């Protein structure tokens, strides 16, 4: 079943484009120091090169401190996508572990996890993270990963719990148990591979949720701190020059939107591939 899903996904044009965009972003982030034309924190001439509009020397223009915006966006991808990828991995791992635990152990463990999910999911995540970050003061990117990732496991836990409970009823699990497989062997060798496509959907959705979250936090000055560039704080630098320097707003917005949009398309197409239904539905 899983193999069919991946085949259908490979033949899907939307999924290929989305994967291409995400791969490009990942490559740009990884190799930013070699691709970027300038040092992202270098302020060569804060008077003469201040807020230069896009040109051949500076394809995305320069910011109020004469720094090259293209270089800052490439290095910002490193920070923004790094935090996003870390937070996504953390939240999906945490969600999968707790969801699996609730489904397999059941009883009061299930009650605690499900109850926690029910209560926490009603709270605005952005508010929670803002309150956390604001009380602890300015944080390092690692702490951002922990806070953003730690607040995002709810949906994954819910999905994994439901899928596990469904699969636990099936005959192949019964057969495995009859052959003497232990509970955790069944989880590791049978259930986890079976829900891998749904986990991939959860991961894509988590990625689409955490990229704007980091951008929003950095934009209000609570996230990644200067001089370290992130897509959010490049925007923050641009807010005072909205009417004069459009390039400070448009390029970071495009970067965030393209990656978020690709992650969403990916989740969407994956779901279609899992359902095995016709493409347009």
């Amino acid at each position, binding site marked *: 079943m899983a193999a069919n899903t991946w085949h259908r996904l490979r033949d899907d044009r939307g999924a290929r484009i989305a994967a291409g965009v995400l791969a490009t972003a990942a490559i740009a982030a990884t190799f930013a120091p070699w691709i970027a034309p300038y040092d992202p924190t270098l302020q060569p001439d804060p008077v003469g090169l201040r807020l230069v509009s896009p040109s051949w020397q500076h394809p995305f223009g320069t910011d109020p401190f004469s720094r090259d915006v293209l270089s800052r966006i490439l290095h910002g991808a490193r920070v923004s996508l790094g935090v996003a990828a870390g937070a996504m991995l953390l939240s999906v791992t945490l969600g999968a572990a707790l969801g699996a635990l609730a489904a397999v152990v059941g009883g009061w463990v299930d009650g605690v996890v499900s109850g926690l999910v029910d209560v926490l999911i*009603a709270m605005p*995540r952005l508010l929670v993270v803002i309150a956390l970050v604001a009380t602890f003061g300015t944080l390092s990117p690692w702490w951002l990963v922990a806070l953003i990732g730690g607040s995002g496991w709810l949906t994954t836990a819910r999905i994994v719990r439901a899928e596990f409970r469904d699969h636990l009823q099936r005959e192949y699990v019964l057969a495995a148990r009859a052959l003497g497989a232990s509970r955790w062997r069944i989880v590791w060798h049978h259930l986890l591979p079976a829900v891998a496509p749904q986990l991939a959907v959860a991961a894509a959705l988590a990625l689409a949720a955490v990229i704007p979250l980091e951008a929003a936090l950095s934009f209000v000055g609570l996230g990644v701190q200067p001089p370290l560039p992130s897509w959010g704080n490049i925007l923050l630098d641009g807010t005072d020059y909205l009417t004069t320097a459009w390039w400070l707003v448009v390029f970071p917005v495009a970067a965030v*939107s393209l990656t978020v949009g690709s992650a*969403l398309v990916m989740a969407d197409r994956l779901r279609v591939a899992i359902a095995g239904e016709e493409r*347009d539905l």
Partner: protein
Amino acid sequence: MTRRLVARLLHAAAVCAVVATSVFLLLHFAPGDPFATALDGADVPPSVRAEWRARYGFDQPPGERFVRWAGALARGELGYSASRHRAVADVVADAMPRTVLLVGVALLLGFAAGVGIALVQTRHHRRWQDRFLGALTLGGVAVPEFLVALLAMTWLGARWRLFPVAGIGGLGDAGAWPLWERIIDLLWHLALPAGVLALAVASRVARHQRVALLGVMREDYIRTARAKGLGEWDVIVRHALPNAIGPVIALLGLALPSLVGGAVLIERIFGWPGMGLTLFDALLARDYPLILAAVLLATVLAVVARTVTDAVAEYVAPRRARET
């Protein structure tokens, strides 16, 4: 129905209790207090510091402070805001209606527009209208609200000067204006923030509603309706929509917490003086009672709105509600 309602209300109360407790704990373990900037200088004698902290109960153990705070909360007292020199209840009474207005208008507008878009897409399934609107709604989902807000502020506000970029009303003595002029002025200021939020709601609603409608369109009773000679619009609006709208309303309820979170940012960007802007000001001033009240009430707003959408979803699609 009553049982479900009671369960929902209990759930809402549990959420609020958890939020209240965790916010209190958080602020207790955080460094600094409202007097840190004013009193902790070298020239302030320790006795004066202690006296001021004692006057506002900061010398008490945290357990006792929590009990006192929770007790006061139960009586509807939210404390005193040191940064605004007013009772927190008064600050909230000013700010809350503005946030409710912003979120409410955005929700209604966005929901109506989203359902409308999905209807057009279903009517012209797989034709250019469907693809074009589908691309638009994908954009609306992919671009985070606060980025749309910045773009709208730059072009519609600052460059073309079609709308005010910030605030809630014109300058000057508002009391001297006739009522209808004040209302128009308020709506004019509301246009950008509410429009941006409505766009986000509409995109999400449209994407879910389209899938729900297309799913229903395969049912036998749709074929029956067509067979008896109904026009395609009548079939979609009168037969497909009533059966496809319930789950979308329920989904909207699930998305409400993130809508309230988005509204917080939108308020800050457009200087809309609601709960979100209050929260940011309070955070900067380390005004504990106000932070607690803002986070708590924003969550309460999300929970209340979700309870309402759940009730509406149940009313619209009673069959589905009974099944679950």
